């Protein structure tokens, strides 16, 4: 059983630097062909201040910490039985190469279905940049079988 005392609890916050080379590597890995994501000149021409952080890369930066699953044991999650059920991004402002993004997560909810056969954990993460600007909110639903 997941530890329901964790509902509402903050998980460790961290900061991640958005590296230009890493964005180019990600672009290659997802088959990106739009030069806005790899070429500074194209990004500037499209009105961006640098290479944009693509829509789902915030999820990768959220995991960019020494042990992104360190909090699993606090909740009682077994990494071998956990599935990523849902992922939601709500965007407030663009993030760019060179930014330092801060990720602050909390356990928003824990519940079960099928008489406890399936357990669910909802994690919410607020992302802000080095100027304190609210960049995005991430919401992950993890399912344990």
């Amino acid at each position, binding site marked *: 059983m997941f530890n329901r005392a964790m509902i509402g609890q903050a998980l460790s916050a961290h900061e991640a630097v958005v590296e230009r080379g890493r964005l180019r590597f990600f672009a290659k890995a997802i088959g990106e062909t739009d030069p806005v994501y790899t070429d500074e000149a194209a990004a500037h021409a499209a009105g961006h201040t640098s290479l944009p952080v693509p829509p789902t890369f915030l999820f990768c930066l959220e995991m960019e910490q020494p042990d992104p699953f360190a909090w699993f044991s606090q909740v009682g999650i077994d990494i071998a039985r956990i599935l990523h059920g849902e992922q939601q*991004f709500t965007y407030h402002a663009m993030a760019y190469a060179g930014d330092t993004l801060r990720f602050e997560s909390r356990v928003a909810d824990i519940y079960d279905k099928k008489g406890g056969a399936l357990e669910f954990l909802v994690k919410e993460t607020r992302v802000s940049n080095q100027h304190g600007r609210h960049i995005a909110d991430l919401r992950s639903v993890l399912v344990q079988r």
Partner: protein
Amino acid sequence: MQQPSYAALAVGDALPPLAMPVISRTTLALYAGASGDHNPIHIDLDFARKAGMADVFAHGMLSAAYLGRLLTRWVPQQNIRSLGMRFIGITHLYSTVRCTGRIVEKFEAEGEQRLRVEISTANQYGETKIAGEAVIAI
């Protein structure tokens, strides 16, 4: 990029689909490195077999990134207000992922004209693997 106009778009309109090349072991190795998701279930055949799988399989967030591309090749990224998805099934090695979307609602919120778009990924057999929704400001 030539932006679609709100007036010219209608509920039921399809987004230009995105057809990706077949997912190979190289695809998964590159995504593991670039994303920082080093879970061996996606890159190490020995580990996957010990875990009871026939082979390695694709990261769900790889297909999610393809859905991001479906949107950003249609509208500038700064127009995306939200992107959400449910992972329905495993995308296997040698799958050919096709991303599609269609407009399901036109509405106004926060002083903007917006579109609600249903999006999904399917494999070469037409089996839906991810179903989701995005909100776009136009």
